[in-house]
């Protein structure tokens, strides 16, 4: 094992050598001259927060999915999306959904392949997240809706629902952003490749890892077709963690991007993974515990159905 790992390490070094060795300042220079300026964000004042509260507060949106049962199709997925306001007296908005492949009439998805089921699962999750955001936007009229994840996901998984959300927010003048913990873009990498600095494509997270100072960010104008005209992103180091997070904002609101970056920066604990605390809180609340799920199933399904379809044979032993 030790040898295998050492070998792996060496190979990574060989392939990515020039990236790993890239001087922090050289990369910054490259970015400044080929991508865009490097900005420095600053945390909002207390007055700013108080004002945001007055303007309707912030709503965080996140979803979760839990599976109970065994191998396909004998399982049921529990989906839950939550929109939660920082304003104390505002009720949480929740959408629940369940899905089990045994209800797919012709078992088409099941018979095809697991990738399809996986897609279906993502689509349901994305859709209820966007739906709960729409509901929150209409009913609660917050100052800002902060989604957990990139807009791209919603555009791919549930385009029309997503567009409805975007329209509502534009109409109601509600800011809409997405915060991405694991960015998957390769905009700087593409540029490097294109200009012949590297001979392979690198992801932005690899390139930027540890190379921005805390609070620094860059703005990315993308030419990607799916995204064109829809959104603008920032990549930022928001905490002591060297990781970079992404922030998406709809194009019509891009004038507010720097204000949003400041807000995210202010809400992110210094010694955290870099995610604003509000999304962390929504994340921990949206999770359905295993016990709760079990309790639901046992109370609402006939025991015959429950036993036959959803109890793993393993746990029966």
């Amino acid at each position: 094992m030790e040898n295998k790992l050492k070998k792996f390490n060496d190979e990574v070094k060989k392939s990515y050598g020039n990236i790993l060795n890239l001087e922090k300042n050289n990369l910054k220079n490259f970015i400044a001259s080929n991508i865009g300026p490097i900005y420095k964000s600053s945390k909002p004042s207390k007055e700013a927060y108080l004002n945001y509260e007055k303007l309707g507060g912030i709503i965080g949106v996140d979803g979760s999915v839990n599976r109970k049962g065994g191998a396909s199709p004998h399982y049921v997925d529990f989906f839950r999306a939550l929109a939660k306001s920082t304003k104390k007296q505002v009720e949480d908005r929740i959408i629940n959904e369940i899905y089990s492949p045994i209800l797919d009439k012709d078992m088409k998805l099941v018979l095809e392949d697991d990738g399809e089921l996986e897609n279906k699962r993502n689509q349901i999750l994305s859709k209820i997240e966007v739906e709960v955001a729409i509901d929150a936007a209409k009913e609660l009229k917050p100052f800002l809706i902060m989604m957990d994840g990139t807009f791209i996901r919603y555009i791919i998984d549930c385009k029309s629902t997503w567009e409805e959300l975007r329209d509502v927010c534009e109409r109601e003048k509600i800011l809409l952003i997405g915060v991405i913990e694991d960015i998957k873009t390769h905009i700087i990498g593409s540029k490097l490749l294109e200009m012949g600095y590297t001979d392979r494509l690198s992801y932005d997270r690899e390139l930027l890892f540890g190379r921005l100072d805390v609070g620094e960010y860059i703005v990315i104008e993308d030419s990607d077709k799916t995204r064109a005209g829809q959104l603008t992103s920032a990549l930022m180091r928001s905490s002591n963690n060297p990781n970079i997070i992404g922030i998406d904002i709809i194009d019509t609101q891009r004038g507010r991007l720097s204000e949003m970056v400041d807000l995210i920066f202010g809400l992110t604990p210094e010694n955290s993974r870099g995610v604003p605390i509000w999304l962390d809180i929504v994340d921990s609340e949206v999770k359905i515990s295993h016990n709760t799920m079990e309790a639901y199933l046992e109370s609402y399904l006939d025991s015959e159905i429950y036993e036959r379809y959803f109890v793993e044979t393993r746990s029966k032993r």
Partner: protein
Amino acid sequence: MKVVGITTQQEVFIGSKDRNFRINEFLIVEDINQGDILGEVIEAHTFNRYIPLDTGRDFVDDSVLESLKALGYAIDEETIYISKVRFLNEANYPVETGSSVRIPKFSEVKDFMLKSDDENGLTLGVIRNTNDMYEDMDTEYKDLVYTFEDGSLIEQREVPYIMDIRSMHQYPHIGVFGGSGSGKSFGLRVVLEEIMKHNVPTIILDPHFEMDFSAKASYLPDEISYENKFVCLQVGKQVGVKFEDLASQDLKNLLDASSHLTDSMNNVIDVLFRNRDSLYSFQNRMNDLTESQELGSVDKILDRINSASNDEERKAWQRKKEVFEKYDKTCSYNSVKGIMWRLKRLENDGVFSKDIKAIEDNMQVGRLVVIQGNTRLLQVFSTYLLNNLYHKRRSYKDALYNKTASEYFPPFIVVTDEAHNFAPKGYDSPAKSILKEISQEGRKYGTFLILATQRPTLLDETITAQLNSKFIFRTVRASDIQTIKEETDLTSEETNRLPYLRTGDVFISSASMGRTIYGRIRAAHTESPHTENPFDELKKKSQEKNINFFEIIKDKLPVMSTDMINLAMEIEREEEIRFTVENLEMKLSEMVEKGYIKKEENFLGQKYSLIEE
């Protein structure tokens, strides 16, 4: 407050956003299908999932929390309170999750807390965590007790704990367990005060000389007196054993309690002791035997008879000869000596100079009789006493049953601290068999035990098993906690708390209640004669001594070390206190050390003098 999570028929979790739970408080779950269900909190937790313990999650800096607060969300308000509640009676079905929960009214829980009232019961303290019910409690239960906590007297704000004394008929015996300083003796004192209130004849064995009820507690505003309700009697001073009343078994018990008897010594008593012997006649007989045994043969005794200088002496040796011929074969010299030595020791303690009449008389008028003496003496005496009293009571009851005449003897309670000394586990001790007998049969005859001990593990297990009610104070020792687990119905949540109980807080596990009550013993009305901290006492004593001595010598200073002998003589003449020169020098240098006087050296020696202002 709402029922949360998974429920069962016996237990539920209850969550609240704003109310912290307290162990042992009562709550009512309002189940829509089953109606109200009464339960008791057995675990209480507070929890804030955003302020996590484990470092796996992000630690949140204050500025972020401040920002959140400005946005309308205060994380510290997210603290939730969770309790585990056990139902007093099992529900028919698991309780509906989400059911509301409320604090009961006093009337709804009264039967679970009070089986008696102040007039008819022992008002021993308060039931902890019942403040919420105080307001709508009937006034007859209010203002009955004070508690004494953290150095101040506190007015009653909780439901009182009143033990039904009449239930002792059914559940006769009480154990009081707890580690050193946990409040046992204080608790016993309160129990005894309450017993005095009811004029129940009671015997208390008090090896520590601490059960005196004449001093009013210094913290108490009200005047409560137990005068005429109790007497303190010391073994060998006011009470003792009447030798003429002893049967040979009593005598053996007595001597054995004093110091273990060998088989051969037991035999000596069987052979030499006669019923109605006086101490004198018995001692004489043994004396005659040992003196003749010291001579060694009938011939040598005959020599003494012949050479006797007067009639009296001759008669005496003749008597000794008879004793020798009769007993020498069966009684070994050493064993007889052993009996004599033991007897002498008890005689010197004064044991045979008095009887137990004073005890019986006081019991007959319903007093508490405190019997004092050192542990060894008390063991000896109590064996005799308890046998005696118990059998009097028994004969009376038996006579009543057989419809024959017998002198009235009242039911009574026997109380002892350090009970493991009187009835130890694993080996025999004289008082053990009578205590065992009372523990097993006392109920029939109206004889009750209250046994306190630091070490329940060391108490005879047959007796422990007969203790129907137990007061359990702070206990730290693992082996004792284990014993308590086995011998009581305390839950593991409760036994886990035992090491952390505050002095005076107690779990009361009683068969008559059918459940465990968490309470606090009330402030005692009286004070032990020596509650003073022994170190304060030492300091005070030596200060007093120093001041007295200073008063004596201050007019005689300065004095040279060469003049010590004159100083000693002078003091002796004037104050009638004797000092050797050596003692006096020591005393003077102690005074120098404590800064009362000063010492100077010059060519003549040392000079002690007053410190000038």
